[in-house]
């Protein structure tokens, strides 16, 4: 029996049956069986989110509750010891984008951290949640309890029609602004709702008990404006919005400064009595002061061919040495053109505005582009 291989079965979210009912094409993703698309296809699903509203199952992501063991600000201070963000100053009912850093100033994962009463709710990437849990237990557990919320689902509702659709079930959402977080009842179910997302559009993320996820999802889908959207369109939407994907645009070797995420490091962590004291602080603070040797940039290939993750970048058509690499690349349905993001060294090489990528043995030009590629519509 030496050559018998036991495959680890893929996990399923609470909405698995709904995905099959809706004709979802299921693929492996981060150890889960997830829908990459539904019968409409990725292009139509993407455009529907920008025009109306899309509902996404993101229950594969990690959800954690972190509390001080003895009350007070211990949890906030403990979190500040592992992220370069202002958590002590995060007001109740507010959420913040955060980065778990490592000793080299690189990124272990990117997260959302929300303060709701005595609790911090942390949402982590599916592919990192096990490692993140171990890391949290290693670092903050002396002063904090850490609860992993495996009995909760997570839905994202995104697009200009999202507010109206969710307000029919929870009128309170109309008064929420971008990055607000509230506990509220949706169809008599206790949920945590944030006004945020991963598409560049206005929208909400709804954390709720797994047992009620399908009912709430079906109620939202009963609204003609709301369509179920797969992971394929989720990726093209976030790329158009210039948002990083951990594992592609962010990893253990990229610092927040190289990634263009300096805005997420609040001033109180750069200078003063709460400056530094997070992993990689010396390198990150030095890069904030002096600049980073490489930068994440937006790229617009000339022509219609997508340039994808891994394509090497060059300063000109004949250059022998690469100046960078594409980290995310594909097609943007709303811009109706190929789009990409990558890292370029040194940033000074960008003076000309045009660089080149290897594509099937030829060098093709790309123009440097501002990020995002589309106008975001966050309700600020």
């Amino acid at each position: 029996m030496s050559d018998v291989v036991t495959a680890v079965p893929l996990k399923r979210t609470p909405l698995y049956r709904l995905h099959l009912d809706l004709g979802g094409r299921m693929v492996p993703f981060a150890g889960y069986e997830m829908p990459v698309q539904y019968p409409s296809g990725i292009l139509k699903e993407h455009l529907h989110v920008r025009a109306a509203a899309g509902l996404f199952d993101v229950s594969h992501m990690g959800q954690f509750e972190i509390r001080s063991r003895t009350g007070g600000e211990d949890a906030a201070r403990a979190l500040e010891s592992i992220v370069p963000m202002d958590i002590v100053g995060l007001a109740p009912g507010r959420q913040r984008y955060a980065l778990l850093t490592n000793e080299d100033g690189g990124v272990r994962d990117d997260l959302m951290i929300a303060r709701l009463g005595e609790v911090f709710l942390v949402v982590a990437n599916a592919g990192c949640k096990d490692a993140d849990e171990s890391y949290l237990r290693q670092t903050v557990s002396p002063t904090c309890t850490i609860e992993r919320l495996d009995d909760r689902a997570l839905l994202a509702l995104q697009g200009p029609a999202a507010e109206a659709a969710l307000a029919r079930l929870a009128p309170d959402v109309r008064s929420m602004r971008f990055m607000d977080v509230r506990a509220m009842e949706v169809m008599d179910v206790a949920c945590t709702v944030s006004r945020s997302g991963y598409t560049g559009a206005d929208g909400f993320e709804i954390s709720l008990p797994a047992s009620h996820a399908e009912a709430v999802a079906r109620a939202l889908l009963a609204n003609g404006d709301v369509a179920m959207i797969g992971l394929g369109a989720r990726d093209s939407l976030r790329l158009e919005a210039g948002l990083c994907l951990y594992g592609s645009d962010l990893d253990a070797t990229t610092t927040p400064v190289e990634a263009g995420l300096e805005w997420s490091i609040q001033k109180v962590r750069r200078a003063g009595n709460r400056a530094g004291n997070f992993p990689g602080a010396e390198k990150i603070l030095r890069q904030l002061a002096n600049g980073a040797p490489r930068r994440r940039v937006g790229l617009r290939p000339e022509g219609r061919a997508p340039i994808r993750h891994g394509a090497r970048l060059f300063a000109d058509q004949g250059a022998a040495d690469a100046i960078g690499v594409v980290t995310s690349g594909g097609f943007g349905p709303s811009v109706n053109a190929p789009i990409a993001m990558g890292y370029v060294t040194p940033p000074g090489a960008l003076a000309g505005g045009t660089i080149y990528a290897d594509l099937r043995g030829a060098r093709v030009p790309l123009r440097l582009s501002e990020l995002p590629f589309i106008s975001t519509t966050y309700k600020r």
Partner: protein
Amino acid sequence: MLKFTQDHEWLSVEGDTATIGITQHAQEQLGDLVFVELPKPGRSVDAGGAAAVVESVKAASDVYAPIAGEIVEINQGVVDDPSLVNADPMGKGWLFKMKIADRSQVEALMDEQAYRTLIDSAESA
């Protein structure tokens, strides 16, 4: 006469010219196409050689020449609008035409019945 390959290309013969495209099954599997790269007319290809590229939102796929021959015409329509391949893969979504170098290579390809069996067994696997 309509023939098929294991890689989900179809080939249709008129005289000594073959028209090549990808099948309904292929376009369904690939999803929405956003880019098509076709070979230059005049180029010679070997049987099984990569002749064209179709790109969906997610990935690029090679299209292989089912037989050896010379590319004589390409379908500019699909270059201008890749969605044509999804909408009508067996008709208006044709990719390129070739002059047939060796007729016996055409005979050796799968007929429609054999191709259906192939995709039915793949779908029930």
